[in-house]
């Protein structure tokens, strides 16, 4: 039962397991979600989803799997097929009555009477498997759970609220594969911190305590070790100019917010591709450049290098000497990138453009190859993967 929901969730990338499936079954058996679709939705959500990032995906998969449950938005009696109404008329009214009505006003009169009947029944009829009433199992009427149910003009439906709940997709901005927003920033920060925090806080130095207690002839002498300090050093290379400016601002904010977590955080800017010169001050970029060699000499291999850029450019800028759009570069960009990623033990490239489109731009593929696949999208997920990669 419901295995297609579980499979659908797994296909959508939710880490749903058999344990959760069984829990859902057990809860259903215990009657937690009696016979209400809405409750079932809530129950399934509480059981199968364990992180608000996945809520949106869950809503989508749920909507897809239980598409049949959706009552179509307000079918009016008037819109119902004539043949069906005719059949209905035969079931609901005695032949005598039909004959009488026919003599009075023909087919239209019958239909009128039927509408009345339908309207009346809507009020009174509850349960049962007959024609229209509510809460029944018949294919027509409201509040029923027949998958092919047609709802007859009713303004409020118990089911619809539920459908709306998952169709509203309230949790969209909690999905972590979308680009960084304000909330995304916060989560991303935590990820960065996690990668920055190494070792625990103040601790009792047990071996030393035992040793000095023994030296003290058995009277207790507690030794503490000082708090371990953060050792993560980050070197940030940021692409500036043109379309990248917004992203650069975002990245800068992100990293400076996490700054207290790093021992060192150094920024350098470049345009399109890091060549032999980078700069620290954007306004004076033409006067005050710093040779990349100097950066390599100043910051040792223990720095973690993060390059932020969209890597979208002409392939010549990567492969050819003199390919730069701004100046004559003696050595090709790829040489410089290999030099950088060779010097720093851990390096990664953050790309703010959506990952989907990377394959379409030749230079992105080239840069990704140069980085040996360590290019990550600027999303919470991407930053997560990056920190994992960098702290391995």
């Amino acid at each position: 039962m419901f295995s297609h929901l579980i499979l659908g969730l797994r296909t959508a990338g939710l880490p749903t397991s058999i344990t959760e499936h069984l829990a859902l079954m057990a809860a259903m058996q215990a009657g937690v979600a009696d016979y209400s679709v809405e409750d079932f939705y809530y129950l399934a959500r509480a059981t199968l989803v364990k992180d608000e990032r996945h809520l949106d995906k869950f809503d989508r998969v749920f909507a897809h799997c239980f598409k049949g449950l959706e009552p179509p938005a307000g079918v009016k009696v008037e819109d119902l097929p004539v043949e069906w109404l005719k059949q209905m008329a035969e079931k609901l009214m005695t032949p005598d009555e039909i004959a009488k009505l026919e003599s009075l006003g023909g087919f239209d009169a019958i239909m009128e009477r039927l509408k009345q009947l339908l309207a009346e029944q809507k009020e009174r009829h509850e349960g049962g498997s007959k024609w229209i009433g509510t809460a029944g199992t018949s294919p027509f009427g409201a509040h029923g759970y027949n998958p092919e149910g047609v709802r007859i003009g009713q303004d409020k439906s118990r089911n619809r609220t539920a459908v709306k709940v998952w169709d509203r997709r309230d949790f969209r901005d909690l999905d972590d594969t979308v680009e960084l927003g304000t909330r995304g920033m916060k989560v991303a920060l935590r990820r960065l911190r996690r990668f920055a925090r190494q070792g625990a806080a103040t601790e009792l130095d047990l071996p030393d305590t035992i040793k000095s207690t023994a030296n003290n002839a058995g009277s207790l002498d507690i030794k503490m070790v000082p708090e371990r300090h953060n050792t993560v050093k980050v070197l940030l290379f940021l692409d500036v100019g043109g379309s990248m400016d917004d992203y650069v601002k975002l990245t800068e904010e992100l990293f400076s917010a996490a700054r207290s977590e790093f021992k060192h955080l150094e920024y350098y800017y470049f345009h399109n591709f890091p060549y032999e010169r980078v700069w620290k001050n954007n306004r004076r970029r033409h006067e005050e450049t710093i040779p990349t060699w100097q950066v390599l000499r100043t910051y040792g291999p223990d720095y973690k290098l993060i390059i932020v850029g969209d890597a979208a450019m002409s392939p010549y800028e990567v492969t050819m000497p003199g390919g730069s759009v701004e100046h004559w570069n003696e050595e090709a960009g790829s040489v410089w990138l290999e030099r950088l990623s060779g010097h720093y033990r851990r390096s990664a490239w953050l790309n703010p453009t959506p990952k989907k489109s990377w394959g379409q731009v030749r230079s992105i593929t080239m840069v990704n190859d140069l980085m040996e696949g360590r290019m990550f999208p600027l999303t919470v997920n991407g930053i997560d993967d990056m920190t994992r990669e960098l702290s391995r």
Partner: protein
Amino acid sequence: MAGFKSTEKYIASRDLEVAVNAAVTLQRPLLVKGEPGTGKTVLAHEVAGALGMNLIEWHVKSTTKAQQGLYEYDAVSRLRDGQLGDERVHDIANYIVPGKLWEAFEADKPVLVLIDEVDKADIEFPNDLLLELDKMQFFVYETRKTIAARHRPVVIITSNNEKELPDAFLRRCFFHYIRFPDRETMEKIVQAHYPDIRKDLAREAMNVFFQIREVPGLKKKPATSELLDWLKLLMVEDLPVEALRSNEKQVVIPPLHGALLKNEQDVHLFERLAFLARRGS
């Protein structure tokens, strides 16, 4: 089955009710997440009240270890007693200090355990509690005794999302994300807390409150608990409604904003907005 429903004081949405009832029925922990101030901790109090259970609270800090919830072996006292020649020293059981979970397991009738802000602790903390929460039992190494729960307690765990919780831990829980209430629910919540608040005051305050939440760039958006605090202040001060009223053109810093804005950058932002609005008009 004793169900959990919205109470007079606590307005629970239907999805929360279902999640709580599922957790209670299947006797599995319920993990509750949500923006700070949306009533995660209060939920445990309310559920305990609704089910008529005693509440045992375990507030987790960054230094909390999973072991502390089970028991602690007070080696320092024992060492001291040993040096002073106390008789108690011969029985190690004298130095086992039961923790919150032990207390819950030993209780005569089912209790509700609240593990508050589980994400504050070390990243391994939830992993260390896997078996204990699953089987509701643990082994005391020092005395070679197994402590098993007489009645499986209801466990509610809250998290502020500061750390990712391990998958194995999540698999054993039900999960609920408390969303920020919409205006309608918020009105109900206010009504539940302050039934005798002036209607116009509540309405204006709510306007201001939702306006503030809309302001882009706030570091900490005020949440339910802030609104309730603020309303209380407003009621105590008995401010006229006009003081709250602001129109589209004019942004004013709300009176007693200290209850809503908890961050000097946010207050600055507001002052700037008010200044710009004055200059613009």
